[in-house]
């Protein structure tokens, strides 16, 4: 899996949670929850979908590292390739 494919997976997941938003427009440093208006339940759903599709379960203690798209991609990349 490449970083771009990973990005696509995350966009698809975000589209399901925030259907009226355009996740492709997220900059790497924007807070995903704030920009896409996703609450804590939606955020957890995102992480569950990510774990189902990549096998990586992100623990609560690592939440602060994955609030941005860049952070999320870095975190997952480290554990995937």
């Amino acid at each position, binding site marked *: 899996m490449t970083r771009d494919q990973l990005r696509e997976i995350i966009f698809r997941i975000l589209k399901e949670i*925030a*259907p*009226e938003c355009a996740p492709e427009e997220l900059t790497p440093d924007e807070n995903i*929850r704030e920009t896409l*208006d996703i*609450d*804590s*339940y939606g955020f*957890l759903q995102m*992480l*569950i979908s990510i*774990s189902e599709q990549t096998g990586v*379960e*992100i*623990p*609560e*203690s690592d939440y602060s590292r994955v609030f941005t798209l860049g952070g999320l991609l870095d975190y997952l990349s480290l554990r995937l390739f």
Partner: protein
Amino acid sequence: MGEFRMPSLGADMEAGTLVEWLVKPGTMIRRGDVIATVETQKGLFEVEAFEDGTLGPPLVRPGERVPVGAILAMINDEQRAAPPPSPPPRAGERIAASPSARKLAAELGVDLAVISGSGPHGAIQRSDVEQAAELSRQERQAEPPPATQTTLREGMRQAIAAAMSRSNREIPHYYLGMEIDLSRPLGWLEDSNRQRPIRERILPAALLLKGVARALVTVPELNGYWQDNRLQLCADINIGFAIALRGGGLITPAIHHVDRLTLQELMAAMGELIERTRAGRLRSSEMADATITVTNLGDLGVETVYGVIYPPQVALVAFGRIMERPWAESGMLGVRRTVTATLAADHRATDGHRGSQFLEALSRALQEPEKL
């Protein structure tokens, strides 16, 4: 003979639109079976049958808007499906009808010749005349335009405006706030979550709801309705859980018997409710039963919430954002994660002392998360 009527799905609901019949006429249905979808200003709901029986032919077509209480279909009590209606008699033949049916038909201006009878040998009975009259009355109503997304949102906005205005007009609110130290409960939750797969992770919101249920056992006067000029306590603790809809609007379906659910069960119930709300598949029973409402705006960053009570309830509990704050205890300064809990309460039902006791009980309950 039972009647399946348009239910009231909210204090200010006057009418609803039947969207879809989910069950064919002639099907055996049981109390609680979902048989139709209805749209109101507040959204789409699945409506359940209130009795057992066989569903009669529809008296309201999909797309029709009817007032609360209008009969949507009859429910036949017989175990067998109703016999197929016999063809109407040819002109000139004496029409078989019971005396009471004839009288009613004359009163309502219904032509017996066009009615099919469901009585013995095809005789027309009173209920047949009632059904025919109802059907022709509803057919005469103009077809409403299909509800677009925009009109639905506007309708919801109006419904919320009406409810909130009424609340502020009629209910003398008082407000109390308390900052609660969440170090222990959140620490406990994190340990607990570490041992669970991500699919079973529990959110702090579940902890807060359970804490409210616990506190209501200690101060039951906040769990009830103000009706007939007095407080009527509710035995069940059904918490109306405020869910914000994407694109605007707020809905507060009830989670039943929160005091009896485990934390895991409560988390599952919350999740399921959120999913069904956003998919427009709530049930009518979930809209009418809340005994108190809890709103959690913590995700957005506000610290304190001054909410508005949903009549006829007598209280609203709100939580702001969970955040790190400086905290002084025993002469020492530290940093703790805290939340500000606010109580908006009806001053006719309780006063500040009782309200304070509730917040105290809430804080105490949250400090013992393992007991929640």
